[in-house]
């Protein structure tokens, strides 16, 4: 008996929910949804392009940094003078002539 009452009550609640909840959005929902899809596609396209550019930068930057370190290591290894300052280390690493008032703006 209790089970029958529970089933009856469940059916009534289901009917109330079905009648009480709107089954449509505001008019022209399909048009708004399609516009949202297109906007999301455009945003996705921009995000993809940014990611591709970031990947390209990473592809160039990482080998460049490695190459730079290799050159630095080679030059440091080839030099013989002890490095008293950071300036002398950089100078030896990249074979940069020391800047003087005469050479500083000679580029």
């Amino acid at each position: 008996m209790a089970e029958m009452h529970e089933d009856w009550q469940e059916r009534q609640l289901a009917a109330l929910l079905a009648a009480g909840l709107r089954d449509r959005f505001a008019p022209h929902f399909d048009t708004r949804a399609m516009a949202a899809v297109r906007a999301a596609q455009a945003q996705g396209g921009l995000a993809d392009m940014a990611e591709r550019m970031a990947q390209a930068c990473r592809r160039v930057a990482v080998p460049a940094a490695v190459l730079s370190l290799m050159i630095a290591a080679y030059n440091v290894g080839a030099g013989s003078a002890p490095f008293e300052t950071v300036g002398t280390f950089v100078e030896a690493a990249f074979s940069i002539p020391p800047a003087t008032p005469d050479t500083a703006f000679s580029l």
Partner: protein
Amino acid sequence: MDIGPASTDADLIDLAAGGDPCAFRELVRRYEATVARTVHGMLGNTADADDAGQEVMVRLYRALATFRGEASLGTYVTRIALNVCFDQLKRRRRQAWQFWQADEDEQVGLADPHDTGAAIEAAQAVQRALVALKPDYRAVVLLRLLHGYSTEETADIIGIPVGTVLSRLARAKALLAAELEDYLDG
């Protein structure tokens, strides 16, 4: 291929995944009612319900290419709609820290202009009763009572054990019955 009510979901999915906007628009039309009922049940008839509906369709479009047809599209759409609603409810909770908690009546929202007085009153009572439930309970009620999924299907869609579905449903039905006493016979 002609796109229309006679087209199968599988055909429309293939065409839409291939970039056919007409096919996707037909899917939107076909599943608007499923999404609308889920969203209005979870969020109330509020302004953000329409935004949530659009978000559901965007997520559906993105997922079409990976849709494997293990569940029906209706079940898949319902699952997406619930996820969107839970995200929306989380956002509301975060905003409640900044702007005071939204009034319950605001969540009940405006009635359908086509409804009569008694229907409006009943609809608002239903929505007020639903809003009073915890969102986890609301989801179970909507899937079991409104969409007619079995207990096992409901458990699968939400990702909770069958026992939890049964206990939440029993509690939710008792709360709804108490809130909607005036509208129930016997």
